[in-house]
């Protein structure tokens, strides 16, 4: 039986009558009840007062399991149960708010990273096209003339690998247009 209220849950395990007098079965029941600790805040075993005299209070204490005794007149808490934090239970309201906030922030960061990745990709492509040494028109200017062997375009080489005297040198662009001007004139 599970009772919930005011942020606390209490589980009460009622033992079958057949188990009251079998010590081994009784101990197994206590073990099973103790295994439930953590799924509710407190766990109790409920026994008739007549059977309770057979129990060992030390065992209950070690396992953190409480004991309810009852007869036809009343129910009493013979041994109090230890309080356990619940792992599966929903978090208190304040924690939930904080968690929601974190989740929102993570979501926001993910979307910002997506935007940045797209921006970096775009810039990278733009940079490569700027570094491209052979303009498209140059490649069409005299290709029909002879099947001159081609090499990999220099633009493939990352700028970091180039000697320092390449940095900011306007000739790289000027020379890369060689042949292109004539093709434009011809057209």
């Amino acid at each position, binding site marked *: 039986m599970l009772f919930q209220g005011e942020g606390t849950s209490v589980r009460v395990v009622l033992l079958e009558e057949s188990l009251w007098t079998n010590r081994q079965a009784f101990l197994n029941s206590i073990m099973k009840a103790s295994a439930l600790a953590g799924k509710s805040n407190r766990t109790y075993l409920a026994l008739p007062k007549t059977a309770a005299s057979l129990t060992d209070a030390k065992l209950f204490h070690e396992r953190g399991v409480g004991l309810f005794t009852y007869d036809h007149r009343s129910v009493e808490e013979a041994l109090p149960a230890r309080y356990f934090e619940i792992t599966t239970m929903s978090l208190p309201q304040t924690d939930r708010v904080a968690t929601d906030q974190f989740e929102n922030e993570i979501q926001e960061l993910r979307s910002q990273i997506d935007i940045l990745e797209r921006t970096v990709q775009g810039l990278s492509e733009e940079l490569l096209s700027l570094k491209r040494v052979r303009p498209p028109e140059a490649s069409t200017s*005299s290709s029909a003339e002879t099947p*001159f062997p081609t090499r990999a375009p220099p633009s493939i080489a990352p700028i970091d690998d180039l000697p*320092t005297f*390449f940095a900011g040198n306007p000739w790289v662009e000027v020379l890369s247009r060689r*042949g292109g001007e004539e093709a434009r004139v011809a057209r």
Partner: protein
Amino acid sequence: MDFGTSDFKFGPITCGDTPRVLQNRGYFPDRDSIMMRALNQAPEIVVGDDVPLYLQSSEDLTSRLVYPMRNGVIDRGDNKAWRVVNEISRFGLNMFRPKSEKDFEGYYVVASLSSVSPRYMYEGLFETMTEAAKDGLVKAATVISQPFAVAIGHGVTTCVVVESGHGNTQVCPISSYPIRSALVAVNRGGGEANSITAEILKDLGYGDLAREEAFVRRVKEDLGLLPLNLERAVKAAKDSPSKFRAKYRVPGTRVEVDFAEKSWQRFLIGEYVFDPENELFQSYITRGMPRPKDVKMGDTVFEGTLDFGEAIVRSVERCPVELQPLLYKEILLSGGNFSWHPPEKLRDFATDAPTKMKILLKEKGIKGVSVKMTENPQHSVWHGCIIYGYAVPEDYRWNWERMEGWLPVAA
């Protein structure tokens, strides 16, 4: 590849900022000598660092040790010089032959020659590259002029490059392309500064030392001065010689040169390079110092005594009027002949090459010019070659009219 007068600078883009440097020379051992026969291993020609290992008697050096680019031009029939060019090119290419030749199809070679080199020199180099291509070393080749390479290496697209080496000086305007029709060549370089230094040494009583070219060059570099104004500097030095006095001692020897009371003559050394027409030089010429002559090399006439300011003005004035102000705004000086360092205490009388050039241009009525030394005079030609080879599209074919583009040489 930069075929300089003294050094051959070479290497692929992977060399970074500094090329490999070898002396641009080759040695032809006497293969008939007993020693060489006994060893039976002397090659026909030796280039690179091994040259000193094969040197024989000093009498033979003149004929056997060949510097092919002494004046920037090789005679068409100078077979020995062409053998050296061929061998040293192959030596350089082999040095950087990739270990794994799986994907190697040969290098795209950019060679640089003096701007006054005639067409047959270009053809000779292409022939050399075609030979190297048979061994898989070259795929395509091109040749650009040294001033053009300097402009590229320096990163200036509109400028005048003044390249002054040992034998001559070339003034070449550049506006995205070298303007060949405006090229002005002067038959004067570091060699002329050596000549007048030797004459001065003779006058000072060091005639025996004046015969050694290396010694003369050291004196020139250590004691020579470039005057702001020759007359004023000479007068000041004559008035107070102690202020201008300088000595040069050859390291590790007892040999010392002291200009003493004649220290004013230090200014003649620099002035003679920039403007040899001053009457102060007349007495040396009268006594036998060779006067720089006008000569024709290949297709170009080199004027002997044209001052450098006038050479620049003549060159620029052959360009369109609209372009001329832009050219004056960017004058680049390149080459060891412009390496003049005035001592701090003589700053009122001595100067550096860019300032002297401004003064010469101002005398011609050209003001507001900008004259700079190339940042890396030793390697700027090679830098230009590397950038040219990297940037020019591979389908930009060689054309003899524009003298640019790639010539495919691989079979």
